[in-house]
């Protein structure tokens, strides 16, 4: 298949928790150098989508392809090594480890992947990007604030030299000013590094402001898919699903 590197292709993805259908035949494509937003209300299936892509939810139907490589049903470890970095809901800081140890875990994955031609990232560049982390590098990650934790997990994901970055509600619990900085940073990263970002957000307005395309999920189905500007401009859609 002639898919370009870093294209994430999701086809007919369905997932169930017992009797609950959380994803119902979802088709989504996310391309390199673009931010693809996935929006929807609580319980729409956004987290399930990301967890299925990264191999944490098992037994789904449909397929997940990365640059044409079929990752359906692979283990979470394999998918991470293939270049999909998932920053989970609630961030996934390992609080018992120090800040630097958290980062080193990302770096280890990056080193393991580099043989496969991933971009090189070093601890220093992350510290340059987030000076606050450098000051706290020897502290337990436990002691970080919400914003610092978000920097930590994004830095950690970048160190793993990913082709695709999955972000699950990165704005949750952050002050509006920090959210704005964070989203600017994400946009900047995508423009500079050309990675693929799949951004799950409740905060639809902010997400659409940096996204290129968007998908709206409701009860596990894709109910709208368009470029970000037209989604943001669709008043009915905004009222029905996005709440702004």
């Amino acid at each position: 298949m002639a898919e370009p590197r870093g294209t994430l292709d999701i086809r007919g993805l369905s997932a169930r928790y017992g009797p609950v259908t959380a994803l119902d035949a979802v088709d989504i494509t996310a391309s390199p150098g673009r931010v693809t937003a996935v929006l929807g209300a609580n319980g729409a299936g956004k987290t399930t989508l990301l967890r299925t892509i990264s191999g944490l939810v098992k037994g789904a139907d449909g397929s997940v392809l990365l640059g044409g490589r079929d990752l359906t049903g692979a283990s979470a470890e394999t998918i991470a090594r293939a270049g999909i970095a998932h920053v989970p809901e609630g961030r996934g800081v390992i609080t018992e480890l120090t800040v630097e140890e958290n980062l080193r875990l990302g770096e280890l994955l990056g080193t393991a992947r580099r043989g496969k031609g991933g971009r090189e990232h070093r601890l220093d560049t992350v510290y340059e990007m987030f000076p606050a982390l450098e000051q706290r590098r020897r502290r337990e990650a436990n002691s970080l604030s919400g914003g610092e934790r978000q920097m930590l997990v994004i830095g950690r994901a970048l160190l793993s030299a990913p082709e695709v970055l999955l972000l699950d509600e990165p704005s949750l619990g952050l002050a509006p000013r920090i959210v704005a900085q964070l989203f600017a940073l994400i946009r900047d990263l995508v423009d500079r590094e050309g990675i693929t970002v799949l951004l799950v957000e409740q905060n639809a307005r902010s997400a659409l402001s940096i996204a290129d395309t968007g998908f709206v999920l409701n009860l596990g189905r894709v109910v709208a898919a368009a470029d970000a500007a037209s989604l943001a401009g669709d008043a009915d859609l905004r009222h029905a699903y996005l709440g702004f």
Partner: protein
Amino acid sequence: MQQFVNITLNGLSQGAIYAAFALALVLIWRATRIINFAQGAMAMFTTYLALTLIESGQSYWVGFAAALVAGLVLGALVERIVMRPVEGGPELNAVIVTLGLFVAFQALAAILFGATFQSFPAPFGLRGFTVGEFTIAFTPFSVFVIGSVLVVMLALTALFRFTDLGLRMRASAFSQEVSRLLGVRVGRMLTLGWAFAAVVGSLAGLLIAGGNLVHPAYMDAVIVYGFVAAVLGGLESPGGAVAGGLITGLALSYVSGYLGSELVTLAALGILVAVLLVRPRGLFSRVAERRV
């Protein structure tokens, strides 16, 4: 006075062994939330392997090394084959599986190696050093015991603090899901964790056996002492396990020396219950609360 010194010295070298055993329990508990009640039986089994080699004419050190390697393999196999399916399930199921292994290993050892008492050699002298005109209860073998436990602890600390493998193992112990997302092969880390723990357990088994009699149940009480030590240390921290081991060794040595050796296991029970009821998070934690 001389008696007190001797009892204390004896308590310290026993305590070092309990510390090693507790450390083995803590390593597994941290990673999988399972107390390996089969730890003692596994150690007994590898010690018998060493004894078999030594009796067939090999040197003590060949037997020693073989027991540690056997521990490594046994730990890995046990995790991979029987513990993996119950990890993360109801806690009672995992407890029952380790107890099943405990009985099975003990019976298997009796079948393969005999159920009688056999004496196990010590690589160093068992006669106490003399200080002035006194002979104290501190022997060249005690030096070896404390030294080898120290070496193992330093090696483990170095592994966990300074190596990539150690970092991956700790990450897997603290958060399996996040570790997976970071490409860590968590299953392998758990297998390795059990393997390393079994090596440390085997070392404890060899050290208890040295210069003593072994039989298939000789580690039964040590499981209890090791568990008490681990709980004293809070069950989470390797450092706590070591301190807990030394405290347990000393306390039990005083009970044995002044009250009677039959009461040692009961005293261990008393310490355990007291700690669990009064300071469930162990002696060294700052918070006293925890669901145990």
